[in-house]
């Protein structure tokens, strides 16, 4: 099955004309048509346009860039001109919003000839950790259809794991790439805040949102990031810092690399299989020449609470634009403008987005700003300083991505705090704006994937790719695929 190739493999075969881009795209289409009725990972199929694009690229016949002719899916928050983009929310699904412009990431991928074949499922406006809050219904974990794929980029992770595409774009605000990567056995890169452009991607929490990808190998993730990263005049928060050649740099060995194990990520009562898998990964790194160092990030325990003030505040502000005037859902015969706004939003938003808008509105309302948002921003500083101190002593941190493997569908939908705690290991890095790479590193005894998280200092993606690539060369976990 061609759709199971990595980008690097497919590129070699395209370049030597062993395969055509049309065959590669068709293979993804066939795979989606055969397995997605079980998974529900793909919420919009753009197959005709993809095949046309592949034909054009085949006719051109040059495959100079590793992404030329490579099919991918984009999380349903990436705007693409002429293609329905709904954030998996009824507020945009009704009267299907069709953006008249491309996100910067889409534009950069298009420029090198990567082919968008459709949209992947997500929690509504990326708010969630399981895809259970999508208006299209939950995506199933390809390893166990009774479990969630993680989230919010759960559709992207399930699609990559199930070989429905060669890679899938995701977004990560508090763990939305890393946690689903871990639940589905993919590689996922969450970048430094501002390493990639957020332009044209629907916002959740603007001081935290990051644009990244899910892929089958570290090498593929390095290829994609090398293509989409860099300063964008349309997103003032992108850093004007040169983009390294990630793919070349990752091939250096890791002899002498100092890897820290933060003790706050290995708590009493944590899932013993996760604990074992991460400690075994540390041993593998040691055997490859790295040094393992015990380290402490004392403010870790405050990460989730800090995040669940900052993120809902920023969400409530960002969601103000969904008022039924410029796009999306509408309502007939409103009494007046206030009635119109209220109806649009009450009918259009789902339960988790409403919950977070309410929290954010409360925390930002008169008299509460200092107690919540300002307090959380101060603790954000402390969390960031923890990492600054850690990276004086080590090059990389190694932690689990999530406290447990994928949970059962419905397990946490009535307990928001419990659902939020699933993000405990990914949130601190988001608050600090540092990059994180999720890599498969084992399986539970009931065959559920376990992922590790490698964290580095801001703009230190190269070192993460180097460590991830070295680990993947020494192990086989990332090659395992589910039977669907």
């Amino acid at each position, binding site marked *: 099955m061609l759709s199971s190739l990595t980008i690097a493999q497919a590129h070699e075969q395209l370049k030597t004309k062993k395969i055509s881009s049309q065959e590669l795209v068709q293979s993804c289409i066939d795979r989606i048509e055969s397995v997605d009725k079980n998974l529900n990972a793909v919420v919009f199929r753009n197959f005709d346009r993809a095949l046309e694009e592949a034909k054009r690229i085949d006719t051109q016949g040059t495959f100079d860039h590793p992404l030329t002719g490579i099919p991918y899916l984009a999380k349903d928050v990436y705007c693409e001109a002429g293609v329905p983009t709904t954030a998996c929310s009824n507020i945009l699904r009704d*009267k299907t919003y069709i*953006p*008249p*412009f491309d996100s910067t990431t889409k534009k950069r991928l298009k420029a090198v000839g990567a082919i968008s074949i459709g949209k992947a499922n997500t929690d509504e406006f990326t708010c969630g950790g399981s895809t259970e809050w999508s208006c299209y219904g939950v995506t199933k974990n390809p390893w166990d259809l009774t479990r969630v794929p993680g989230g919010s980029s759960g559709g992207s992770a399930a699609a990559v794991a199930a070989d429905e595409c060669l890679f899938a774009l995701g977004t990560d605000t508090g763990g939305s790439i890393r946690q689903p990567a871990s639940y589905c056995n993919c590689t996922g890169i969450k970048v*430094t*805040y*501002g390493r990639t452009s957020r332009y044209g991607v629907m916002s959740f929490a603007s*001081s935290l949102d990051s644009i990244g990808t899910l892929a089958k190998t570290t090498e593929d993730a390095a290829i994609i990031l090398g293509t989409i990263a860099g300063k964008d*005049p*349309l997103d*003032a*928060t992108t*850093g004007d810092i040169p983009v390294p050649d990630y793919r070349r740099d990752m091939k250096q060995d890791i002899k002498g690399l100092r890897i820290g194990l933060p003790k706050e990520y290995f708590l009493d009562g944590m899932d013993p299989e996760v604990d074992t898998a991460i400690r075994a990964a540390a041993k593998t790194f040691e055997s490859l020449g790295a040094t393992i160092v015990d380290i402490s990030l004392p*403010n870790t*325990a*405050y990460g989730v*609470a800090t995040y*669940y*003030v900052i993120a809902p505040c920023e969400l409530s502000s960002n969601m103000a634009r969904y008022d*039924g*005037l*410029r*796009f999306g859902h*509408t309502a007939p015969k*409103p*009494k*007046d*403008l*206030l*009635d*119109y706004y*209220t*109806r649009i*939003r*009450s009918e259009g*938003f789902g339960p988790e987005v*409403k*919950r977070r*808008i*309410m*929290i954010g*509105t*409360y925390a930002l*309302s008169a008299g509460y700003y200092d107690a*919540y948002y300002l*307090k*959380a*921003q*101060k*603790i*954000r*500083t*402390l969390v*960031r300083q923890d990492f600054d101190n850690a990276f004086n002593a080590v090059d990389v941190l190694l932690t689990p991505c999530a406290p447990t493997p994928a949970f059962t569908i419905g397990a946490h939908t009535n307990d*928001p*705090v419990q659902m*939020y705690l699933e993000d405990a290991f990914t949130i601190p890095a988001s*608050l600090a*704006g540092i990059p994180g790479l999720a890599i498969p590193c084992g399986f539970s005894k009931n065959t559920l994937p376990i992922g590790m998280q490698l964290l580095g200092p*801001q703009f230190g993606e190269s070192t993460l790719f180097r460590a991830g690539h070295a680990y993947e060369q020494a192990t086989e976990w990332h090659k395992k695929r589910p039977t669907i």
Partner: protein
Amino acid sequence: MSSLTKAQVEHIAKLARLSLTPAETEKMAKELSSILTYVEKLNEVQTDDVEPTAQVTGLETVLRPDEILQDIISPDALLDCSPLPKTEHQIQSPHAHG
């Protein structure tokens, strides 16, 4: 232990331009209270001399030339996204006072 009354929840909903059914209000009061109780944890941390973080990579006031970039997108293409009727390149919104 934070707990929000139904009246508080209704007030926040009004600010957020949401209308909740009585059942939703009750559920929301319970859930918001449990979330707020959880975030009270932040009060354990002494932050008197700590500066807040708003922009995590330290960028400050990024400027660009004040030029209109019409090649990205045309105003009419944006207007076409609106579900409401248009008059003279403007969206006709519902009347503010009924």
